[in-house]
């Protein structure tokens, strides 16, 4: 009985998590445009997806902005962590608070304030403004995930490296960086996903003629979302699943290898 409930519980959770995605995937093969009628199997949406330049352009913009903004945010955020590490405890708490506030701030407030800021500086709206905004809201997430790693770090290892003749930069990249790398990776991934699905800030800071996937999909709401979007979402989902699978399998192999080596 107990195991039945355990399984039942797990099954329910998985249904809630994956049923919507499954629906979307099925609909992407639906010949009929409406969501409530099955018009037969078709691959047409996939074909027209790759013929639709505006969607592909939006996809490209989304990915480019996500990668660039999270890379830049990682650099700035990590630098900020190094600085905060050498501050007094009081100052560090103050700075940590300052970087946390933007995360709690409502997106719409951030979006409108950024828009007004750009206007007052006379910056032309377009790709660069979206990128800047995404970097801005990504930095706190990087700091949030790098800082705990930084705190665990033994400060003496860095000093030891300096004593042994390493320059500051060498000491950082050979001693500190490998230690905080997991934190940086988490920060990067978090920033990447935040950037990928942001709508409201992008809406207010984008210029005419440039769209990311989220703004593109949103603008279709009035007339009904095009089935090409289901096809695209399916492709993205499958790609992510495959990537996760590959990473996990290769991760296991390499950890097994090191274990074997250690045993030898």
């Amino acid at each position, binding site marked *: 009985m107990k195991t039945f409930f355990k399984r039942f519980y797990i099954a329910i959770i998985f249904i809630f998590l994956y049923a919507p995605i499954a629906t979307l995937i099925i609909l992407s093969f639906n010949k*009929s*445009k*409406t*969501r*409530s*009628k099955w018009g037969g199997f078709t691959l047409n949406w996939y074909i027209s997806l790759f013929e639709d330049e*505006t969607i592909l352009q939006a996809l490209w913009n989304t990915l480019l902005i996500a990668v660039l903004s999270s890379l830049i945010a990682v650099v700035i955020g990590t*630098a900020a962590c*190094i*600085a905060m590490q*050498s501050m007094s405890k009081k100052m560090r708490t103050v700075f940590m608070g300052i970087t946390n506030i933007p995360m709690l701030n409502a997106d719409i407030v951030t979006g*409108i304030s950024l*828009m*007004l800021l*750009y*206007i007052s*500086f*006379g*910056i*032309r*709206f377009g790709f*660069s403004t979206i990128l*800047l905004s995404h970097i801005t809201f990504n930095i706190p997430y990087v700091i949030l995930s790098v800082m705990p790693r930084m705190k665990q770090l033994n400060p003496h290892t860095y000093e030891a490296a300096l004593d042994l003749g390493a320059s*500051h930069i060498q000491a950082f990249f050979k001693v500190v960086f490998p230690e905080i790398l997991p934190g940086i990776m988490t920060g990067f991934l978090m920033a990447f996903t935040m950037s990928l699905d942001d709508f409201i800030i992008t*809406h*207010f*800071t984008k*210029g*005419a*003629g440039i*769209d990311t996937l989220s*703004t*593109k999909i*949103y*603008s*279709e*709401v*009035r*007339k*009904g979302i*095009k089935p090409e979007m289901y096809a695209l979402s399916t492709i993205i989902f499958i790609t992510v699943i495959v990537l996760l699978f590959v990473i996990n399998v290769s991760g296991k192999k390499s950890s097994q290898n090191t274990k074997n080596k250690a045993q030898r």
Partner: protein
Amino acid sequence: MKKRKLLALTLAVSITAATLLSGCGSSSSGGENGQVVVYNWGEYIDPEAIAMFEEETGIEVIYDEFETNEMMYPKVEAGATQYDVVCPSDYMIQKMIDNDLLMQLDFSKLPNATEHIGEQYWEQSRQFDTDNMYSVPYCWGTVGILYNKTMVDEPVTSWSILWDEKYKDNILMQDSVRDAFMVALKLNGNSMNTTNEAELEAAKEALIEQKPLVQAYVIDQVRDKMIGGEAAIGVIYSGEAIYTQRENPDLEYVIPEEGTNIWIDSWVIPKNAQNAENAHKFIDFMCRPDIALMNFEYITYSTPNVTAQSMIEDDDIRNSSIAFPDLSQYTNLETYSYLGEEGDALYNALWKEVKSY
């Protein structure tokens, strides 16, 4: 010492970045530079029409889309991007005129608009653009009742069917303040632009009374739910009705006898437009009958372009009472007008009461 250096470096980097960016900004000076920046609803134009415009005039179209009037307004008002042509709905145009955001159109540059847009649509436009000086109608439609003939066997003529106990849990209402109140106000024989508190209070009571019968308050799901036969009666926009009928022939659309909302989306030019000349060319191009016809076939929302209407090949659609109802037959069609901030607040407060009842 270390810290200083780092600080100096950070400062240097940020200053360089700032100068670079502001450099980008100042180079964005406007003027007639062979461009036109268009801000339209999503999926609201045949992409082919834009390509044709670019080819014929050599003007580059920078095309941008919005999802609601309310999302569009702050962007145009703030002037973040200087749009040359925008396509808002009736009440929003009135708000923009009130707030001095729009430019008077030069109709000598819009021969197609004056020639091909029907007189009755100019007349309807006067409800939000009193002297027809700021806007050129692009798409229009009505709000009415869509019902499933297999589930409703009586003739539908009145909004009161939405209050019929028989159809409990089979009714779909629009989930937007103005549309929901429009139904109740019209049922009570009032204007849908009223700010009379007693009338609004009565409408609120009616909506609360109706609430147990309503299956769901929805926006664009009306379309799919009605096609799938999940509900018997729904409040819907006429442009969607044609599409739903194509998917499910059992569906029928009616304009209730108490009258309803007639909405118009029109082209306007914001005051801060950089390419007003090109904007006029773009609007005029959209009024050319062959282009209007292309757009009608793509969007399926009624076109105010009477020449384009007469060119529609399919008889059923050309004479469709859904797409092109005879407006002279109705005396009680209204467009939404902008109610001012106080009016909006009143409607929103009452709607909240309905939704939380």
